[in-house]
C-alpha cells in the first residue's frame, strides 16, 4: 500500500478533513457521496485529494444511490466508503440494511445534525438510535462515537479494518461540531504505528465453479421462506454476539469511589470530563464513563463500574432527548441505580451544564 505521508505530522484541521486524511491513510480507494451539511467537506477534501493519490469519487443522484454504490463497490473488493448526515442518514438506512443482510464491509461516516426532518444543519446527537439500530433489521452494526479529531483520524483507519475483518457495516459517528471545528491532531501512516491494514478481497466473481471446487457466497438480502430468513438472522446474531466482547471500547475515570457517574458519548464526553475534574476539585465524588462503541455497547464494563463504585446515581447527558438514555437502559436492564438525565436535543453541552445538574441531583 502506498504511503500517504512521508512521516507522522501534526495538523490543525477540521474533523471533515481528518476523515479524508484518515481514509487516505487507511488505503480507501473510492468514495461515493451526496452533499449534505455538515459532512460536505469530507467530499470536498476527498475530491481535492483523490486525483493526487489515484483515488476515485462518484457523486451519485441521492443518498440511496450513494449507499448502494458502496454496497456494490465493496463486493468487487474495493475499499469504498461514504459520509452523510441527518435526512441523508435516514435515506441511507436502506443500503445500510442491505450491508447488514449481505454482511458487506461497508464503512460510513455520520456527522449528526439536528432533527427531526431537516432540523438544523448544525449539531446534535440525535442520530444515535438510527445509526446503531437502523431500519428493518437487528442492529448488526459497529458504531464508534468519536470525541476529538485525533479519534476521528484513528477510528477512520480502524473502521475500515473492522468492516473488512468482521464484515459488519461499520460507522464513525461524529457530529456537526466535530465536523466543522479545527483542532490539532497527529496524522500518521498506519504501518508506522504497527497497524496492519487488512487486505480487501472480492466477494463476487470468484475463481472456480460452485459445487465443484468452491462453496457459493450466498450474498443474499431476500429469502423465499420464513425459515430461511430465521436461520440466517439467528446465525448472524450469534456471530455478532460472539465478536462483541472484542469490539467493545470505552473510557472510564474516577469511578472507584464515585457517588454519581456521568455517562456521555461523543463530543459531550469532553464537557463531562472537564465537569468531573471540576467536581472532584470541589470535593464531589463524580465519576466518568463513556462508551466509545455504542454498538456493541460496553454494558458489562458499565455494570462493573456501577458495582465497584457503589454509586447511587447515573447521570446521562446527551444532545438528544433520551437516545443514549434508552440505549443504556436496555443494555443495563436489571441495575437498580437511579438514572437522572440532562437532555439538550440539538444544542451543545458544556461542563457548567453538567456540574449544575450533578449538584442539583445530589
Amino acid at each position: 500500500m502506498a504511503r500517504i505521508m512521508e512521516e507522522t505530522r501534526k495538523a490543525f484541521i477540521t474533523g471533515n478533513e481528518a476523515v479524508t486524511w484518515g481514509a487516505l491513510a487507511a488505503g480507501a480507494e473510492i468514495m461515493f457521496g451526496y452533499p449534505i451539511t455538515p459532512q460536505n467537506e469530507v467530499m470536498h477534501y476527498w475530491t481535492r485529494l483523490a486525483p493526487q493519490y489515484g483515488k476515485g469519487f462518484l457523486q451519485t443522484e441521492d443518498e440511496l444511490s450513494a449507499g448502494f454504490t458502496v454496497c456494490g463497490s465493496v463486493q468487487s473488493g474495493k475499499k469504498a466508503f461514504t459520509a452523510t448526515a441527518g435526512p441523508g442518514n435516514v435515506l441511507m438506512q436502506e443500503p445500510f440494511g442491505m450491508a447488514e443482510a449481505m454482511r458487506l464491509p461497508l464503512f460510513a461516516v455520520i456527522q449528526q445534525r439536528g432533527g427531526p426532518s431537516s432540523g438544523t444543519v448544525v449539531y446534535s446527537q440525535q442520530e444515535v438510535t438510527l445509526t446503531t439500530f437502523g431500519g428493518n433489521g437487528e442492529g448488526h452494526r459497529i458504531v464508534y462515537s468519536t470525541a476529538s479529531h485525533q479519534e476521528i483520524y484513528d477510528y477512520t483507519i480502524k473502521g475500515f479494518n473492522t468492516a473488512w475483518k468482521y464484515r459488519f457495516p461499520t460507522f464513525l459517528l461524529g457530529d456537526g461540531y466535530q465536523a466543522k471545528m479545527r483542532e490539532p491532531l497527529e496524522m500518521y501512516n498506519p504501518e508506522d504505528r504497527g497497524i496492519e491494514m487488512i487486505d480487501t478481497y472480492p466477494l463476487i466473481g470468484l475463481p472456480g465453479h460452485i459445487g465443484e471446487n468452491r462453496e457459493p457466497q450466498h450474498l443474499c438480502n431476500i429469502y423465499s421462506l420464513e425459515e430461511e430468513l430465521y436461520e440466517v438472522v439467528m446465525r448472524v446474531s450469534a456471530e455478532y454476539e460472539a465478536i462483541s466482547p472484542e469490539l467493545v471500547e470505552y473510557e472510564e475515570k474516577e469511578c472507584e469511589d464515585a457517588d454519581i457517574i456521568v455517562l456521555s458519548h461523543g463530543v459531550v464526553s469532553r464537557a463531562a470530563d472537564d465537569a468531573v475534574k471540576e467536581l472532584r476539585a470541589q470535593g464531589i465524588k463524580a465519576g466518568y464513563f463513556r462508551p466509545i462503541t455504542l454498538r456493541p455497547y460496553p454494558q458489562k464494563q458499565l455494570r462493573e463500574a456501577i458495582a465497584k463504585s457503589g454509586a447511587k446515581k447515573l447521570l446521562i447527558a446527551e444532545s438528544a432527548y433520551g437516545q443514549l438514555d434508552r440505549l443504556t437502559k436496555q443494555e443495563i436492564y436489571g441495575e437498580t441505580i437511579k438514572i437522572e438525565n440532562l437532555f439538550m436535543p440539538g444544542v451543545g453541552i458544556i461542563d457548567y451544564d453538567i456540574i449544575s445538574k450533578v449538584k442539583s441531583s445530589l
Partner: protein
Amino acid sequence: MSLIKIALAGEGGQGVQSIAEILAEAAYNENKQTIYIPNFGLEQRGGVSIAFIQFSDKRIGAPKFNKADVVIALSERAVERTTIYSDKNTLFVYDTGFKVEAEMLPQEAKKIIGIAAIDTANQKLHPRVFNIIIMGAVIGLTNVVSFEAAKAALEHKLAYKFEKNPDLRDLNFRALEIGKKMAEESLKEGVANNA
C-alpha cells in the same frame, strides 16, 4: 495561560472567519491548544457570521461556550446577536463606526469598549485591512498569541498576495499593530465604558 474564550461576530464579508482562522493557526504554531468553530447554520446565509475560538495550555473541552471572555461585534446586528455571550467577566467590544443605542449593549459586562476600527481602516489604511485591525485588537486585549506569531501566521495565509504586491505586507502589519495599540489604550483608559 488558562482558558480564553472569544466570540467574533460581523457581517458576511467583514472577514471575521478569516482572522479567527489566522489567530487559531498562530496559537497552534505556538503549541497552544486551540479550537476554532464557525457558526455554520442557515443563519449564515444573510445572517451574522460568528467565530468561536478558544485558547488554552490544556486540552479544551466543549467546542462552544455560553459566555465569552471577549466578544467583538462588528455591526449593529452583530451586537444584538452576541449580547447573550456577555456576562460580568466579559470584555464586550464594538465598533464605533455604526450607531448603537445604549439599550442594545449587553446588560452585563466587565467592560464595554468602543473602538474605531472601521474609521481607522477607511481613513488611515485601507478598508480591506479592517479585519486585521480587529485581529490586532484581539491580541491587544488578550495576548492569546504573540505579535510575532500573529505576523508569521498572516504572512503564511497571505503569502501569495504579498508576493504579488509587497506593499500589502506593510499595510497588514501596520493594521495589526494599530489594532493592538487601540485595544491596549482602550483597556488603560476605559474609553466609552457604557456599562
